[in-house]
């Protein structure tokens, strides 16, 4: 219900810097995922939004309201904690009812809302239990329930479904996204799981070592990663990187690797010229954009050797030895191959990425 605006925010813990000059905007009623590996400052950011952590420098606005000096109570947020933080001496029902009781909601209304949330989270039968008697996943759902019983200005989720089993996690992804759409509440969702970020969020902020790497829609992040780090972090299996040299010939630009030469498209050539690309680059190619055929001389342009094949039911991951480099290829299921069996692969020039070797910034 409000736009959240983070401006030049820094967070220090003593001398350690957890968040560096963060600028981030979460539009009204949209779903923002903050994605990054462990220790990148995601929780710190969220806790500053909640008012649990002092903001070392910079400003946070909810709409036009600067909230730096406001305690959590006055920010009208609901937060789900990484480690549940349930009230151990209260039942599941009382845990979920607490935010409503603090707002003097009447009894019938409390009962109605708690039961509705419990039903949504499939924990109706646990309402009389204490947190001690719950499994990890049940605790986590109780914690989510405590947040969704009321309608706050902003939802803050800190890895709310990280501890659930895969099936329930997939189910909860859908439920949470649906819930967010239905309640139309500004939501900021912290996760280290790119699948969650990609599938749920309107916008993703990718963070690494306290620094915002890229902000964009899931498709922007996936298709146009801003740098090598983002490209490598987002996507499963991760993108392959190969050291190449650019050679400019009469007929265009070619990326040269000891094992192959790849001619770039005209559009790519123009982008490289615009950005004044250096000769040394890193070629990024996603596993599912590489064509693969087993057998020597099987027709694709580049000869390589199989390192290992990993069948995944309908698909197959093939690790391919390409000179000194090893790359991952994702292909339709086929017969397994043994170590060092020959194969051929091909790259789709239109779907590769090039990054500056010096600083990892993307050319395209």
């Amino acid at each position, binding site marked *: 219900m409000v736009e959240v605006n983070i401006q030049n925010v820094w967070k220090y813990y003593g001398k350690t810097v957890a968040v560096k000059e963060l600028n981030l905007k979460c539009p009204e009623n949209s779903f923002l995922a903050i994605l990054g590996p462990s220790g990148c400052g995601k929780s710190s950011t969220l806790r500053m939004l909640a008012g649990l952590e002092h903001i070392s420098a910079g400003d946070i606005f909810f709409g036009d309201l600067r909230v730096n000096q406001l305690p*959590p109570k006055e920010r009208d947020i609901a937060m789900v*904690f990484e*480690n*549940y*933080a*349930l009230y151990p001496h209260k039942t599941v029902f009382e845990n979920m009812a*607490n935010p409503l009781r*603090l707002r003097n909601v009447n009894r019938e209304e409390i009962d109605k809302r708690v039961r509705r949330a419990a039903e949504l989270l499939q924990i109706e039968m646990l309402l009389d239990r204490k947190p001690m008697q719950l499994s990890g996943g049940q*605790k986590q759902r109780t914690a989510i329930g405590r947040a969704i019983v009321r309608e706050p200005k902003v939802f803050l989720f800190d890895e709310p479904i990280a501890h659930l089993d895969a099936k329930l996690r997939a189910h909860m992804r859908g439920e949470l996204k649906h819930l967010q759409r239905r309640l139309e509440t500004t939501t900021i969702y912290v996760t280290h799981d790119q699948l969650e970020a990609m599938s749920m969020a309107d916008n993703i902020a990718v963070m690494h070592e306290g620094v915002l790497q890229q902000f964009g829609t899931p498709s922007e992040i996936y298709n146009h990663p801003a740098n090598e780090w983002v490209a490598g972090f987002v996507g499963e299996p991760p993108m392959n990187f190969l050291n190449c040299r650019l050679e400019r010939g009469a007929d265009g630009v070619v990326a040269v690797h000891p094992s192959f030469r790849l001619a770039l498209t005209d559009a790519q050539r123009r982008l490289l010229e615009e950005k004044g690309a250096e000769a040394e680059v890193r070629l990024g190619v996603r596993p599912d954009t590489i064509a693969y055929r087993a057998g020597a001389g099987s027709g694709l342009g580049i000869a390589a050797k199989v390192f290992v094949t990993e069948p995944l039911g309908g698909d197959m991951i093939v690790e391919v030895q390409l000179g000194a480099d090893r790359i991952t290829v994702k292909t339709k299921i086929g017969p397994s191959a043994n170590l060092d069996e020959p194969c051929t692969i091909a790259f789709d020039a239109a779907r590769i990425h090039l990054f500056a070797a010096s600083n990892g910034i993307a050319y395209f």
Partner: protein
Amino acid sequence: MASREIAQYPSASRRVFGVVTILFIAFYLLWTLLPLLIMFLSSFKDLLDAFQLPATGDWGGVATLFTFEPTTKHYENLFLELNFGTYLGNSLIASLGSAGISVVLGSMAAYSLSRLDFRGKNHLFFWIISTRMAPVVAVLVPLYAIFRSLDLIGTLPGLILAYTTFNLPFAIWILKGFFDNVPYAIEEASMCDGSTRLQALRMILPLVAPGIGAFLVLCVLFGWNDYLFSSIIGSGGAKTLPPATIGLVQPQNIQWGSIMAAGAVTTVPMLFLGVLIRRYLVAGLTMGAVRE
């Protein structure tokens, strides 16, 4: 989460250990309960009966310990002639008063020490606990001088203050441990739910209540059983039960019956207190269960 039933498997050594445990407990019960039993019995006996003891080794004669005409004259003597009612009241007011003040102030201090970071916190904490390192007698004389100049000698407020001086640092030290045991995230969650800092503290109070209750009892016991402070700082207007009981030992005439009765009067209230808060005492020891 794992249940708290411990899986046990029978073995020879476990059986032997079980027998040894029972023997030890039996001996321990005899050791601790027998003196109490003799005290209670003797307090209802006439002086002559009280000294009817069986000869050493005469186990059949144990029965003579239990054959007597019960009399309440010692109790009548204590309360009607010797003013023990007042002393009992003094004991109660001084020990409960000091325990209450210590626990309330101690909880507040312990909460801040546990939850807040400020410069010199560790030094402050060490200083607080170091005040308990000096033996009581070492500070008694200066304390007496101070109290005299403030006209606190022989008054109940003076005695309460003296006990609090000793209870408070201990309370802060112990209670900080209880607060440390409660994850801060619980308060954070409560604040995100929309409570103020104070309401968040109220939210975790039930979690530390067993600890606070257990410690309250320790403070009461300290005041209740104290002899030194009461005989020096309380002497005159604020005499409590222990010095009053000692007063029954006179050079010419040791009033055994009354001493036993006074002992019973001193013991019984604390026994009741113990039974009353037993649940809390046990819960206080299992505080670890709060952790998620």
